[in-house]
C-alpha cells in the first residue's frame, strides 16, 4: 500500500485513520456506557438497549420538527435541548420498564434476556405504528455539518468532534456519579452485596430502579447523538446492539474502565483493518480476535476483584 502514495499522503492516511478510529471509539463508548451500567452493575442483559437509543433519536426528531415549525430561532441550539429531553424520555421509560418487568426477574438473569428481547420487539412495532415504517430524517443545524479542512487531504468532520466531546462529557458524568457521589456508593454497595446493603439501610429497590433508569437515559442521549451519523427508523436500534454487547462483554462486564478500554481496542483494530481490507473482512477478523481473547480471558479485559 505504501508504495502507491507519497510521504505526505501516507502521513495524512495515518492522521485521518487515527481520527476515524477515535470517532469510532467515541461512538462505541457512547453506545456501550448505558449498557455497561445496567449489565455491569445490575447483571441485567438488556436486549432492548438499542430501542432505548432509538427512543432518544425519535425524541430528537420530534424536537427538530417542533422547533422548525414553532420556534425557528432556537434551531441552531435545539440539539442540546433534544439531548436533555432524550435523556429524560429514555430514562423515564427505563424506570417504568424496571418497575413493570425487570424487578420481577432479578433472580432469573436469563429470563431478563428473553423479556427484554420481547420488549425490544414490542418497542420496534410501537415505533413503527406511531412514527411510520419509513426512516425519518433529522435535520441538523448547519454548524454541526461539514468539516474543518486542515490540509488538502485531512479534513476533520465536525460531527465527529461533537460526538467525541459528548462522549468525554457523559463518561465523566457517569464516573463522578458512580465513584464520587453518595448514590454511586450505594449502587456499588448493592452490586457487591445486596443483603448487606439492605441491612445498612440502603433502599436497594430504589437504587435498582434509578440505576436502570440512568443506563437507559444514557442510551437515549447516545441515540440522540447518533442522529448525526446514522439512520433513525423503527429497527435502527438493531444496528448497534451487537457491537454494544461486544464492547461490554469484551471489556469485562462489571467494569466501566474495561468498557472504555475494550471500546478503544475494538475500534482501533477495526478501523485500521478496514483501511487495509474490505469492511466485511475487517469485521470478521475483529470478531475472531475478540472470540480468541475471550477464550483465554473469559471474564473480559478487566475484572473486579471480589470474593465469590
Amino acid at each position, binding site marked *: 500500500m505504501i508504495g502507491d*502514495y507519497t510521504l505526505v*499522503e501516507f502521513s*495524512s*492516511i495515518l492522521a*485521518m*485513520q487515527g*481520527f*476515524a478510529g477515535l*470517532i*469510532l471509539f467515541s*461512538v462505541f463508548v457512547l453506545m456501550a456506557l448505558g449498557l455497561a451500567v445496567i449489565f455491569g452493575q445490575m447483571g441485567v442483559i438488556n436486549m432492548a438497549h438499542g430501542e432505548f437509543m432509538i427512543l432518544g433519536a425519535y425524541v430528537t426528531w420530534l424536537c427538530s420538527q417542533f422547533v422548525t415549525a414553532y420556534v425557528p430561532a432556537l434551531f441552531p441550539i435545539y440539539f442540546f435541548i433534544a439531548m436533555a429531553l432524550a435523556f429524560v424520555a429514555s430514562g423515564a421509560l427505563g424506570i417504568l420498564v424496571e418497575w413493570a418487568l425487570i424487578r420481577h426477574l432479578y433472580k432469573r438473569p436469563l429470563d431478563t434476556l428473553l423479556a427484554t428481547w420481547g420488549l425490544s420487539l414490542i418497542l420496534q*412495532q410501537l415505533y*413503527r405504528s406511531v412514527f*411510520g*415504517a*419509513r*426512516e*425519518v*430524517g*433529522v*435535520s441538523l443545524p448547519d454548524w454541526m*455539518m*461539514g*468539516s474543518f*479542512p486542515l490540509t488538502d*487531504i485531512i*479534513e476533520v*468532520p*465536525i*460531527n*465527529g468532534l461533537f460526538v467525541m466531546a459528548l462522549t468525554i462529557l457523559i463518561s465523566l458524568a457517569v464516573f463522578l456519579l458512580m465513584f464520587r457521589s453518595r448514590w454511586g456508593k450505594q449502587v456499588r454497595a448493592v452490586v457487591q452485596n445486596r443483603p448487606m446493603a439492605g441491612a445498612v439501610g440502603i433502599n436497594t429497590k430504589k437504587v435498582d430502579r434509578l440505576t436502570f433508569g440512568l443506563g437507559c437515559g444514557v442510551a437515549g442521549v447516545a441515540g440522540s447523538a*447518533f442522529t*448525526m*451519523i*446514522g*439512520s*433513525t*427508523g*423503527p*429497527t*435502527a436500534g*438493531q*444496528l*448497534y446492539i451487537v457491537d454494544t454487547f461486544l464492547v461490554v462483554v469484551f471489556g469485562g462486564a462489571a467494569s466501566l474502565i474495561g468498557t472504555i478500554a475494550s471500546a478503544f481496542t475494538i475500534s482501533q483494530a*477495526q*478501523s485500521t483493518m*478496514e*483501511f487495509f481490507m*474490505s*469492511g*466485511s473482512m*475487517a*469485521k470478521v477478523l475483529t470478531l475472531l480476535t475478540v472470540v480468541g481473547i475471550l477464550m483465554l480471558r473469559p471474564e473480559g479485559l478487566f475484572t473486579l476483584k471480589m470474593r465469590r
Partner: protein
Amino acid sequence: MMSDDTPRKSPIATRRRVLAGMSALPFMGILGTKVSAADYPTAVVNTTGLAVTDDKVTVGILHSVTGTMSISETGSVQAEKLAIKQINDAGGVLGRQIDFIQEDGASDWPTFAEKAKKLLVQDKVASVMGCWTSASRKAVLPVFEQYNGMLYYPTFYEGLEQSPNVIYTGQEATQQIIAGIDWVVSNKGAKSFYLLGSDYIWPRTSNKIARKHIEKLGLEVVGEEYYPLGHTQFNSVINKIKLRKPDVIYAIVVGGSNVAFYKQLKAAGIDMTKEKPLLLTISVTEDEILGIGGENIVGAYACMKYFQSLPNDNNVEFVKAFKEMWGDDIVIGDVTQAAYLGPWLWKMAVEKAGSFDIDKVREASPGIEFAKAPEGYVRIHENHHLWSKTRVGHALDDGQYEVVYETEDLVEPEPFPEGYQ
C-alpha cells in the same frame, strides 16, 4: 422458458382460440367498450378453480408490513392498492371487481414462503403482487412453481433468474447499470471508478457487471469494497476514497447503512455538488432520501427507470392519484412505481387471454404493452422482464430528483447478460 405443454402461439391466436371456445355463447360485448362479466362466464374464464366468481376475482398482496423491510415495502403495498382501486373504478377485470387478500411476510423469508403457499393453496388467488428483496423472492419461487401461481415482482434486482411464474416489473441489473455508466463516461468524462456496496448478492452482482462494463470501456476501477448490512461507520472507506481520488463513487449501499454513509460522506467534506468525485448510485430512490435527508445527498446522481419528478402526463396523473389516496407528504420511488405496474399488467394479460387461468395469462403476457405507465410506455419481453427506459436523476436538496438523461429507446432486459458473468 415457457413451462407449460401447449406449443407457444402468438397471443392473437390464443385469443382466437378462446373466442372459438365460446362460440356457442351469444357474441356480444366483445366489440363494445364496456366489458361485462356476463360475456365471460366463470366456467369458461376459470377452468382451474381459482378464486373467481361471477362478479369478483381475488388476488394476493404479499409484502412485509412489519420488520426491517417494511421501510421499503410499504410504498409497494400502497402502489398496488392504488392500481387495484383504479382498475376497479374502471370496471374491473373481465367485468369482475378485484378483491385482495393482504398477507404480511414480516421481513422473514420462510414466512414469505408460508404465506405464498397459503395464498395459492387456500385462497386460490388469481395472481400475487409481492416480495421485495431477492431473498424473499427466492423463498417463494419454489412455491409459485409447484402450485403454478403468478407473481408480479416489483424490485430492481440482480437478474440471473427467469421463472415462468414470475413477471419482473423492475429492472434487472444491466438495465440499471450500463446506461448510467455510459452516461457518466460520455457526459462527465469519468475515467476512474470506486465501487462500493452492502455485502449481499445484489450489490455484488451489480458491481460485477459494472466492473466488466467499465473495463470493457478501457477505464479503471480503483477500488471495490463491501460492508456488512447495517454497517454504520464509513470513515475508513471515505478516507480511502479521498486518497484514491476516483472520478466516480459508484455506491450500492442499502438500508440503514445508506443514511450513515451519506451523512458521513458529507461530514468528511466530500461535497457532491462539486462532482469531484461524482457520486452515482443505483440504490437510493426518493423513499431512501426521506431517511437520508435531501441536504445530505444533494448533487448525487441516481440511475433508475422512474423518478417522481418525471414530467410526462401519465406520471403527473399517477402522482396526483397517489397523493390523493395516501396523503400529500408521500414520496414515490422507483420500486413503488414498478409495483403499480403489476396489477395493470396482470389485468391486461387476463383480458388479452380472455381467461384467468394461469397458463393462459402466462402465454398472453409477452408483448403486453402498457402505454399509460407512469414511467412511460413499457412492454413485457419474452423473458418476463420489461422493456423500459433507463434514466439518470440529479438529487436536489428537497429530496427529489431532476431527470437529466434518459435513454432514447427502451432498453432490452437481459437477465442473463452475455459477457458480464
